[in-house]
């Protein structure tokens, strides 16, 4: 394997460069996926039937907690990648752990919010609006959940194998994924919650 030392470790081999580029294309597909879910939501947002509307359901506190948790986690994973570039393994792992804890916090609030909705009689079966809302939020939440497992496995690999071209490559790709979830959240924040509360 040829290692190009002029590049950061995660870009240092041909295979690594292909993987990062491939993941960008995958994120392109993910954008198409979330765009479809958003489009579905916009089409069905007024289809509330006999169920509650967004205005009735959305609460500021849970929204703020989720947003703060997720946006901060995007910052900490950036710090983690920065530490990785500096070759500081302990700091990298530390920032990754903080990121995942914040992600877990986000997920906890989201699950709490879903339970609250169901208590208010708003289930995924109540109306088309709620079906599309739960599906959009749920798909994002499922991505975060998957990310929590994925991130944990990467931390384990860095700890065990050190900062190699493979482990840094995986960590970098994971950070792209995590930032992407943040971007999707910003759209959910703006076009689902803010627009729904106005």
């Amino acid at each position: 394997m040829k290692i190009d030392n002029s590049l950061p470790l995660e870009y240092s081999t041909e295979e690594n460069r292909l993987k990062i580029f491939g993941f960008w294309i995958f994120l392109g597909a993910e954008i198409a996926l979330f765009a479809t879910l958003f489009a579905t939501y916009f089409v069905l947002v007024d289809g509330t039937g006999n169920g509650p509307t967004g205005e009735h359901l959305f609460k500021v506190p849970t929204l703020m907690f989720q947003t703060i948790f997720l946006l901060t986690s995007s910052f900490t994973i950036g710090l983690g990648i920065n530490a990785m570039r500096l070759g500081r393994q302990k700091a990298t792992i530390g920032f990754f752990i903080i990121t995942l804890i914040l992600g877990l916090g986000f997920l906890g609030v989201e699950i709490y919010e879903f339970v609250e909705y169901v208590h208010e009689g708003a289930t995924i079966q109540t109306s088309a609006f709620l079906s599309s809302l739960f599906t959009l939020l749920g798909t994002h939440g499922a991505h975060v959940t998957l990310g929590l497992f994925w991130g944990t496995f990467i931390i384990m690999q860095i700890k065990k194998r050190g900062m190699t071209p493979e482990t840094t490559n995986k960590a970098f790709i994971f950070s792209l994924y995590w930032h992407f979830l943040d971007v999707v959240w910003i759209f959910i924040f703006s076009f689902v919650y803010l627009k729904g509360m106005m």
Partner: protein
Amino acid sequence: MDYFDRFAVPHPSPAIYASMVAIGLTMIAVVAGITYFKKWGYLWREWLTTVDHKRIGIMYILAALLMLFRGGVDALMMRAQTAIPDNGLLDGQHYNEVFTTHGVVMILFMAMPFIIGLMNIVTPLQIGARDVAFPRLNAVSFWLFFMGAMLFNISFVVGGSPDAGWTSYFPLASNDFSESVGSNYYAISLQIAGIGTLLTGINFIVTILKMRAPGMNLMKMPMFTWSILITNFIIVFAFPVLTVALALMTMDRLFGTQFFTMANGGSDMLWANLFWVWGHPEVYIVILPAFGIYSEIISTFARRNLYGYNSMVISMVAISTLSFIVWAHHFYTMGHGAMVNGIFSITTMAIAVPTGVKIFNWLFTLWKGKIVFTVPMLYSLAFIPIFTLGGVTGVMLAMASADYQYHNTMFLVVHFHYVLIPGTVFAVLAGFTYWWPKMFGFMLSEKIGKWSFWFITIGFNVTFFPMFITGLDGQARRMYTYSESTGYGPLNMLSFVGAIGLAIGFALIVYNIYWSTRYASRNISNDPWDARSLEWATHTPIPEYNFAVVPTVASTEAFWDAKKKGFKLFGGKVEKIHMPNNSGVPFIMSCIFFVWGFALVFSMWIIAIIATIGIFACMIHRSFEKDHGRYISVEEIEETENKLRGAK
């Protein structure tokens, strides 16, 4: 026993029971045969675990041929049923099932994999690469497609076929109107196969953009590779829409959500929109590679450079962009107003412009060429006029106001068969014959090939042309029968006769494979067609590393110029080559996907959860696995090269 009742076919007939027995016996025969000849180890080592793009391509094509016959039998049943008025061969329910599976199988499990198969074999060779960017992912793609196809195909003997049309429109496909698990099969098997296709898309974009031989810039790529690049961009941006649409459909059917319902705010037309936002680009996913194949073949057998290379590329890019903004032309009659219909009418007609450019480019390539009438060339030559007929009727259908007359008639059915059969089917048959010697080291018989060409071309026109007339006369599609007083009888009988001709043509292709495997000469050169691009520059059969030395490219027709103008292709020295290891995980994971899909179809939650865990376990295994591939040493390469050179 109640538990097993759910697996019974809800609307059985003697033919279905006979198929069950036939499937059972075939399975036993295959297993017994492999055991008797002690081929399990060979099968596992060389095929089920392979990550070699050439072998994966061959498996795609084999699966596609199988599906061609499944879909073909469906087609014959339809033609036989409608051959005479008031026929009782099939009842309405069976006819619904047959046209549904015919459509799904032909588009998703025949046309797509056939094209992906050719793309797998040819693209890395054409760009001078040793494999695709992610060989392991490629195996995952294939096995997911294969398991999706198998899941779809068992539907008609276990639990009942889907019967809501290949478009599966709501509310027809909802639980209220499609009570059997058939539509669950549709949603979940397409989902599994679709994930595989999406991964193929990512894989080939990276391969083509990042792994081309030195000197081959984008505008020096062979036209087939160009068409594949554009196709894969369409795949990456269209398939997620299908993923979402199918997921919503699954949730509506299994979890009682309200996306496509009529009450509680749902919108049944949302399904039609989502389906066709994917569905129309899908049409171009199967037609653009066909254009690429024809460009290669026409320029090879006219012995001329492809005319208008740049305009070919630009028109393909234009078609791919337009393909995303025409979807509403599939339901002008939905009633979305003159403005919307007008806009979609114009975008649809605009597609005729770049397509027309391509037709003229092929004609100008042929102009003054020294045409060699081989089987691939015959298909390409027949394609041009027949496809044009299909294209022109497409423009007729694009006119929104006139479409109210054609909508849901046989005229529409013929239109898309006139584009898809000469477009995609002729192209894959031509490509299959053209690249066959590169895959297997011998040629298919030209004589038998020409017989099947004539049967298919004449049979095709005899089958479908009469439907233009009955369609304009008002014969509706998807009607299982009609009364004698309509007067559709004689022309439908003619269609049936043509369908038999088509069937003979396809049977001859199988006979050709059999005959040529037994009798064709193995003593052929690396370049039996006197072709132009890099796949012909390596040995036949192709060594697993494709090229001992990576070629250097200086022109669009690298190999032709190397032959005729003396450009040097292989300048470098032989070095050790890094190759990926085989792996059984893609196959195992896809088998678990099959179980997962089957469990979801029948709402067997515990099995579904266990299977989900199994799928994730496979991914975790991949994450923790240390696999650095292996190296082929210089001595080994030289030994292989000498052996291959000596054989000629």
